[in-house]
């Protein structure tokens, strides 16, 4: 089927990086005192939470489905990279494709091609590629020892985070330079991965902290599903970077950057390289309000020899003001400007008539939250975003949170979010086969959500969220009535999806903690009248109807940790993109990870980990029209963390 080739071309029109803002918020008298006594000692250190309202807010009050992965969670899971750490979030689908690539989504639409509705930020810098509407996880390699926390919001975040925060937002927040002082060596040797990271933090002058890091890693080849697949996808990464935090009275300044070069060393299948530099300034004003500015530059390139060469350069500027409009409300408003230069040179039949596109995005947003009654809090706002690709999009949001009792909160929301078109959606063409689609416009979501979060007993915390998502203008591959060709990408599918997510943490004793999580998703989609889709809904993704996980963390003896995790993912049933037959694309699987950690001294930690122990290999994603499917192997690792 010729479309297979086009789709493949689309799939490999890859890029790194771009889009959407976030300035990190400063606190203004959040009314959290009443919640604080119930927090655990770990949670106390995290009382400020920036994601949902873009200003610190205790998790218990955030009127959204937020799961926070802490630095401790990541360490105890033994995760080797960011995507593996994201398996901790019960509100995400994580499917590993090969040694380096992952498809990650929330609330559906997960597959190598379709996971385009989740926005990902690293310290306020977007790593969502506007070029191909996806995240190239192989280049998002934040050193895990420097991660303070990862906030995973399932559900729309358009009002504060802008376009493409449709099904969720992942906010990766690194520790300040002051929190990473001294020397650290983090080294892992394993059957599938080798990784070494070294960091040094010091105070170069009064009021400043600086950290420098370097890391190198190698992920082995995975084994192919097809006997005809002779590719060697082992992935080697080299990366370095720094972060400088400076305090000047009421001002906080941060300058941070990374540089990387990654490749497939066994075969020259692809290589990527890039750098980014972010400056952030926050100023505490009198009366408790604050002003923030952030500017970043991000450049990255990807070369797939003989296939594609692309370069993406982005400059982004954001301003945010946190204040109050009247007594006891919190008002945030701000704006963003972004310029991207996207260059894509394709050596395939499918390509771009204009290899270079300049994309401009401007947006303005405002949000206010206030207490309507004593215990009923209202948060409402809107973002208006203009892009040179999609004209003006409105993303309004209305949320209620009701503190039913001291430890119990109910919330509900209605909001709208959009995925803006990418260069690929609008400009990809192939003579005689695929027409460009200059009128392709944003995919839209109206989401209704409700949830409960609370702490029924001192040892148990619980979160349940329900959603009903109405999608419109999802992408189809339109074909001609008789001749089939030429094809054209068009907006043409509506969907109504609903589902639930739940998680709980239960401290059985002071040395044994259990975490449970599950999600469930029910999907229906329809072609709009007069529309057609040659790929039988390939853009809708491949989602398991449910998945569940349980984790156990035990500190049995002083200095020793015993951890176990079991996850179960239901089978993925979808229509094959070329034949249209409904079939099981990815079988159901259950896998187990085990870890033993030993704090040999105050500064030395050694751990032994086993991943995917139940099977020699298993499949997590399967979309042959986009990439060569590969198995995920069983793996063992030995890790050493030595601080000086």
């Amino acid at each position, binding site marked *: 089927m010729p479309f297979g080739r086009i789709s493949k071309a689309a799939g490999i029109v890859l890029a790194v990086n771009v889009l959407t803002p976030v300035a990190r918020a400063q*606190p203004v*008298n959040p009314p959290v005192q009443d919640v604080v006594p119930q927090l655990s000692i770990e949670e*106390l250190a995290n009382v400020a939470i920036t994601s949902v309202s873009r200003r610190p807010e205790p998790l218990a009050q955030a009127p959204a489905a937020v799961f926070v992965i802490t630095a*401790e969670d990541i360490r105890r899971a033994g995760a080797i990279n960011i995507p593996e750490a994201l398996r901790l979030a019960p509100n995400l689908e994580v499917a590993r494709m090969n040694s380096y690539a992952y498809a990650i989504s929330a609330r559906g639409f997960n597959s190598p091609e379709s996971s385009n509705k989740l926005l990902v930020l690293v310290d306020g810098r977007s790593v969502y590629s506007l070029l191909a509407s996806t995240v190239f996880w192989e280049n998002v390699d934040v050193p895990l020892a420097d991660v303070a926390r990862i906030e995973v919001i399932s559900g729309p975040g358009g009002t504060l985070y802008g376009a493409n925060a449709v099904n969720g937002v992942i906010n990766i927040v690194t520790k*300040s330079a002051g929190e990473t002082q001294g020397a650290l060596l983090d080294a892992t040797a394993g059957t599938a991965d080798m990784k070494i990271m070294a960091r040094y933090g010091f105070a170069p002058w009064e009021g400043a902290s600086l950290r420098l890091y370097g890391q190198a890693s190698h992920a082995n080849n995975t084994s192919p599903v097809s006997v005809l697949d002779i590719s060697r996808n082992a992935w080697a990464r080299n990366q370095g970077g720094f972060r400088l935090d400076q305090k000047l009275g009421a001002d906080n300044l941060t300058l941070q950057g990374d540089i990387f070069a990654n490749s497939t060393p066994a075969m020259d299948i692809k290589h990527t390289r890039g750098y980014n530099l972010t400056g952030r300034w926050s100023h505490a004003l*009198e009366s408790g309000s604050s002003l923030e500015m952030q500017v970043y530059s991000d450049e990255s390139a990807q070369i797939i020899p003989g296939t594609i060469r692309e370069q993406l350069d982005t400059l982004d500027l954001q301003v945010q003001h946190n204040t109050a409009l009247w007594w006891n409300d919190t008002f945030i408003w701000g704006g963003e400007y972004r310029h991207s230069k996207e260059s894509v040179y394709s050596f395939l039949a499918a390509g771009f008539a204009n290899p270079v596109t300049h994309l401009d995005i401007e947006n303005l947003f405002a949000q206010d939250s206030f207490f309507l009654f004593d215990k009923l809090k209202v948060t409402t706002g809107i973002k208006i975003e203009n892009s040179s690709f999609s004209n003006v999009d409105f993303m309004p949001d209305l949320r209620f949170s009701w503190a039913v009792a001291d430890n119990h909160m109910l919330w509900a929301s209605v909001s709208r979010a959009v995925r803006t078109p990418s260069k690929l959606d609008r400009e990809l063409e192939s003579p005689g086969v695929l027409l460009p689609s200059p009128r392709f416009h944003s995919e839209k979501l109206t989401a209704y959500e409700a949830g409960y979060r609370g702490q029924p007993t001192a040892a148990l915390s619980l979160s349940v969220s329900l959603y009903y998502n109405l999608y419109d203008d999802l992408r189809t591959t339109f074909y001609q009535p008789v001749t089939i060709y030429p094809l054209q990408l068009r907006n043409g599918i509506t969907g109504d999806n609903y589902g639930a997510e739940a998680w709980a943490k239960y401290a059985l004793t002071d040395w044994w903690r259990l975490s449970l999580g599950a999600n469930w998703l029910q999907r229906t989609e329809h072609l709009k009248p007069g529309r057609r889709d040659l790929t039988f809904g390939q853009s809708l993704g491949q989602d398991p109807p449910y998945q569940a996980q349980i984790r156990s963390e035990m*500190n049995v003896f*002083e200095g020793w940790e015993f951890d176990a995790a079991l996850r179960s993912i239901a089978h993925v049933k979808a229509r094959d993109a070329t034949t249209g037959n409904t079939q099981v694309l990815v079988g159901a699987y259950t896998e187990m990870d085990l870890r033993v950690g030993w704090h040999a001294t105050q500064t030395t930690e050694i751990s032994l980990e086993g991943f995917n122990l139940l099977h020699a290999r298993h499949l997590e994603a399967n979309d042959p029209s986009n990439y060569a499917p590969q198995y995920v192997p069983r793996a063992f690792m030995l890790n050493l963390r030595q601080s000086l």
Partner: protein
Amino acid sequence: MRARLTTLALLGLMTATGARAEVSVEYAVKAAYLPKFIPFITWPDAAFTAPDAPVTICVLGGDPFGGKLEQAAGELRSGDRTISVRYLPAPDGAASCQVIFLGKTDATMAEGALDAVKGKPVVTVTDSGLKAHGVISFVIEANHVRFDIDQAAAAQGGMTISSKLLSLARAVKPRGQP
């Protein structure tokens, strides 16, 4: 002179508006921390008058917590022991406490109290902004309340601090370092 006037003017403004609430969030968090440290600390038996004597948290020189500390302590127990709270106007009697919070209202008095209980089984907790550091010292960092631990000072008083608490600290000064 001019700079000083501006600072005063700003201070006046801050008290007049919402800044007060912000301060009490900080102390609500600190009040929540104090009793939660206790299960992670082992005192020598001699630190208590009886096996079921309560663990006493003392607060030296004024109450910055506005009742939050009693609320936080009242809900917690450490093994068989309850947690009680006492306010001390002066450092005398500090040695009878198991935990003593040294506020920043009077830095000289805080330093005096640190000297007075040095080598005794008392966990000194110094407030952020103080120059002197106790066994545990609160630190404000990037809008979060964090704490540092001086393991050497704890060891001097015959106390041990569990690795769990050490792992939650921002920085740990290990045993055997001056």
